[in-house]
C-alpha cells in the first residue's frame, strides 16, 4: 500500500528557485486562504510566510483542509508542499488529496498521494480535464491521515504555481525564447 515516491528522493526541488528563474509564477497572493481548523498562532500566516520554521497546526477532526479560493479562474500548474518527518513525526501528513472545482460543493479530486516519511518539498503537478492545464476557482489540499495515526497535522509551507505566460506572439505554442538575441525582439515594453 505504501509506495516509495522516487520523486522525493531526486535532487531537491526548490520552488523559490523556479520562481526566480521565471519558469513558474507563484499565484497564492491572488487567492484567499482558509483552513478548516488551526491552533492560535499557527495559521495561514505561518503557512504562507517564507519560513520553514513556522508551520500550520490543525486543531480538529480529520480531514484537515486548506482552501485556496481565487478571485478569478486561474491556471494552476502545480502545488508545492514542504513537509518534514524528522521535525514533525506524528504530525506529518500521510495521505494528501488535492481537489479543485468552482466552490466547496463541486470539488473534484485530482490526486491522492501517500507520503512516506517525507522531508522536503513535495510537488503535485496538476492537470485539468482532457489533460489540459488546470483552470480553477477553488483549490483544496486535504490531509486525510497522518503518520503514526496522529490526529493533527503540521504543514510548514505551501506554494501554488502557475505557468509563466510567454511574452510575445507565436504561431505555435513553442514557449519562450532562450537566447537574449531572440527574446529582446519578442515583445515591446
Amino acid at each position, binding site marked *: 500500500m505504501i509506495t516509495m515516491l522516487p520523486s522525493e528522493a*531526486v535532487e531537491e526541488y526548490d520552488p523559490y528557485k523556479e520562481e526566480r528563474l521565471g519558469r513558474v509564477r507563484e499565484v497564492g497572493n491572488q487567492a484567499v486562504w482558509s483552513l478548516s481548523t488551526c491552533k492560535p498562532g499557527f495559521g495561514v500566516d505561518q503557512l504562507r510566510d517564507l519560513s520553514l520554521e513556522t508551520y500550520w497546526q490543525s486543531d480538529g477532526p480529520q480531514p484537515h483542509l486548506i482552501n485556496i479560493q481565487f478571485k478569478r479562474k486561474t491556471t494552476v500548474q502545480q502545488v508545492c508542499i514542504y513537509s518534514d518527518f524528522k521535525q514533525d513525526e506524528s504530525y506529518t501528513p500521510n495521505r494528501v488529496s488535492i481537489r479543485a472545482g468552482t466552490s466547496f460543493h463541486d470539488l473534484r479530486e485530482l490526486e491522492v498521494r501517500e507520503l512516506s516519511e517525507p522531508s522536503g518539498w513535495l510537488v503535485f503537478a496538476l492537470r485539468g480535464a482532457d489533460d489540459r492545464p488546470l483552470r480553477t476557482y477553488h483549490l483544496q489540499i486535504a490531509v486525510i491521515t497522518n503518520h503514526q495515526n496522529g490526529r493533527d497535522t503540521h504543514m510548514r509551507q505551501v506554494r501554488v504555481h502557475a505557468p509563466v505566460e510567454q511574452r510575445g506572439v507565436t504561431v505555435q505554442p*513553442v514557449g519562450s525564447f532562450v537566447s537574449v538575441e531572440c527574446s529582446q525582439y519578442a515583445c515591446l515594453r
Partner: protein
Amino acid sequence: MKMIIQEPVQAAIWHCLNHYAYSDATFLAERLCAEVQSDESVHLLATCYYRSGRPGQAHTLLHSRQPRLPAARYLLALCCFELDRLAEAESILSGGSILKPKGHDDVSGEFGDSASLALRLLARIYIRTERKAKAAEACKKSLKLNPFLWSAFVDLCNLGESVDSAKVFTTAGLDSFAMCQGPAGGGPGTEPAPQQHHAPAPHGVGHVTNVNITSTPYQTPVTALGGGALPPGCGLTVSKATPDSEKDAVRGKQALFRSQLNSTVGSPYSPSFGFLPLDTPSPGGESLPLGLLSSSPALTNNAETHDTKPGFGRRVLNRKDRAMLGLSGSSVKENNKANRLVTPKSPSRKIKTRSSKTALTTPNFNELNEKNRSERQLKSEPRGRPGSETITSAADAKPLTGQQLQVAALTIQRGSAEGLMSLLRDVGAAYQQLSQFSCRRAVDLLSALPAHQFDTGWVLSMLGKAHFELNDYKQAVRYFQMVREREPYRLETMEYYSTALWHLQREVELSALAQDLLDHGRHSAEVWCAAGNCFSLQKEHETAIRFFTRAVQVTPQFAYGHTLLGHEYVMTEELEKALTCFRRAVSIDPRHYNAWYGIGMIFYKQERYTMAEMYFKNALDINPQSSVLMCHVGVVQHNLQKTDAALLTLNRAIALDPANPLCKFHRASVFLSSERLQEALDELLQLKQMVPNESLVFFLLGKVHEKMGHAHLARMHFSWAMDLDPKGANNQLKEAIEPAISRGPADDDKTAGEAGVLGDSSFLPADMTATPEAAEPFQPIQAMESDESL
C-alpha cells in the same frame, strides 16, 4: 506715518527672488501688498508664492484680487493649470462669454508680451482636454510669436503634426523681440526701475549691462569685453529670475554664449549660439559674434577676413550676416554699444513708461548714435583700447530717427538670435523625424550636429531613444551610458534606458541604474519606472507593480508609466487592470503606440484575434518602422487564417529589419503550419546561422524533420534543442521531444492525446514530480505509481 514707497521695495524683493531667498521676498511682498493695493504688488506677492512652490496660495491670492495685468493673469492661469483646474485656466486665458470665446488673436492682443506663453499654456490645456486641433493651432501661433519656445514645438511634434522646423525657428517673422524677451524697460508689473542697476562701468573697460537686463529686475554688469576681464560665469548671471520665467531660457542662452565668449578669449573661435558653428557651411565658417561681445583680438582677426558691411540696413537675417561679423570685429566698444542697442526695443513701443526708464534710454540713444557712426566705416583693426567712450571710427554720425533705431535694433537682435535659431532648426528637424518615428533619419540629423552640442545629455538621449524605437537596444544602451557619464543628474529618458536594459536582460546594470537614480530623484516618475523594470526583470512582479504604481502617482500625466504598469499586470495575468492602464496611457497620449500594442496583446491572450489585429495595426500605423509590431501583425493574421497576408507582412518585416531573427522564425513557423516544409527548412537553416544558440530554432527544425519523416534528424535536433535550454525553461520542449527521442515518431501508444504543437498528438502529460531534467528512467515508475494511488 511712514509710507512704504513702492519702487525700492520692489527692487529689494526682486533682488531676494533672484537669489532664491523666497521667505524674505514673500515677507516683504506681503508687507508691500498690505501697504499698496496695486496690481503690481499683488502680482509680485503671487510670484513670491509661486516660486516658493506654493501655487495654491498664489492662486487664492490672484483669484481674490483679480489683477488686470496680463502677466498676473498668466500667472493665475498657470496656477489653475497646475492645480488641475483646467476650465478655470482656460477661461482666464481665452475666456470671454460662453457664446463667444475669444480667438487666439484676441488672446495675443490681450496678453501683450506674455502672449506667446499664454498661448503655450492654452495649448497645454487643449492637449489635456483632448482637443488636438486647437492645441496644434495654439502651438503654432505661440511659436510664430516666439520661436524660442521649444516646448511648443515639442508638443506640436508629439501631436503628430508635421512641422517644418525651418519655418518655425526663424526670427524673420518677428516684429519685435518683445514677445520673446520681455518688453524693453520692463513690462507691466515686472521689474522695478532699472536705473539703479544700470551699472556704470567700473573700469575703463566699459561694462555693458546685459542686453536683456532691462527686462530682468536684477541686472548684472557684464563686461562685454575681451581681455578676459570677466570671469566666464558672469555672463550667466544675466539669466536671472524674471517674472516671465520662460524668457530666462532666452536670456540664459544669450548669456551663455556671452560667457562662452568671455571664456574663450584668445581662442580662434568661440563655439556658441552667438557664433556660426565651425562645421556649418557658412562663409569663413569662423565665429561670427553677433554683435554682442567680441572678446578677443583673435576674434577681431577673424573678422578681418570677412567683408564688413556697413550699416544696419544691409543686414540680412541669415547666417551670412557679415555686417554682424564686421560689427563685432571692429571694436569691442562697438559691441558694447550693440548690446545697449538691443535694450530699448523701441522707445516708442513701451507699454508702460516709467520716468526712471527714460534715463536709461537716453544714454542708449547716444550710444546708438555713436554706434551708427562706427558702423558707417567699419574698420577691422582691433581696437586696442577697450573701454573708452569714444568710438574710434570717424564720424559721419547722424543721429538716427526713432524709427530707424527701431529697425536697427530689431535687425541686430535678429542677427544675434540667428545662431540659436539655426541650431534649433537642426535640432527641431531631428526631433520632428523622431516623433514621426523616422528614426534613422533622426539619427542622421542628430549626428550632424556640431560636436559640442552633440555631446550634451539631451542630444545623446534623443539618439538613445531613436535606437530604442528601432529595437536596437545595444546601441541605445551605449548612448544612454554616455548620457549617464556626462550628466548623471539627468532623469528624463532614463526610463527608456531601463527598458532597454530590461530587454537585454542585464540585471546588474539595471539594478545599478535603479539604485543611482533613486539616490537622485525619488520624486520623479522616470526613476520609479526604472526601479519597477529592475524588479520585473528579477521576476518580482508584485514589487514591480508597486513601483510602477508609484511612478503613476508621482506624475499622472506620464503615459509610459501607465504602459509599464499595464505590461506588468499582463505578466501577472490581471488583464482587466492591465487594460485600464493601457487605456489611460492612450487617453493621455494617443500616439503612444506601446499602449495600443499592449491592448492588442491582451486581446491576443484572450484569443480574440480580430481585435488584436486591429490594435496591432493601430500601433503599426503610428510607428510604421517597428519590425516587432509587424511580426505581431503577421502572426495574428496567420491565426486568423489569413496566411497570405501574414506572409506578406512578415516579408515586409524582414526587409525592414534584417537583424530581427524573429521575423524569420515566425515566417518559418507559418511555412511549417502551412505544410510548406522545404521553405520552412530553408528559413530555419538561415536562422540557425543568425542565432546559433537559440533552442527554439533547433526545436522547430526538429519538428520540420519530424514532419518530413526524418526521424533521426528530428531526434538530433530535439536533443540539441534540449542542450541549448539548460534551465529547462520550456517544458513544451520536453513534452514534444520525449516521444520523439525515446520512442520514435511512429510510437504513439504511451502518449496522452493532447493536441500539441503542430497538431501532432505525441505529448506525454507533463508530470512535474520529477525535476525538469528528469529523463526517461522515471517515466515507467511514475506510470506505475499513478495506477497505485487510485
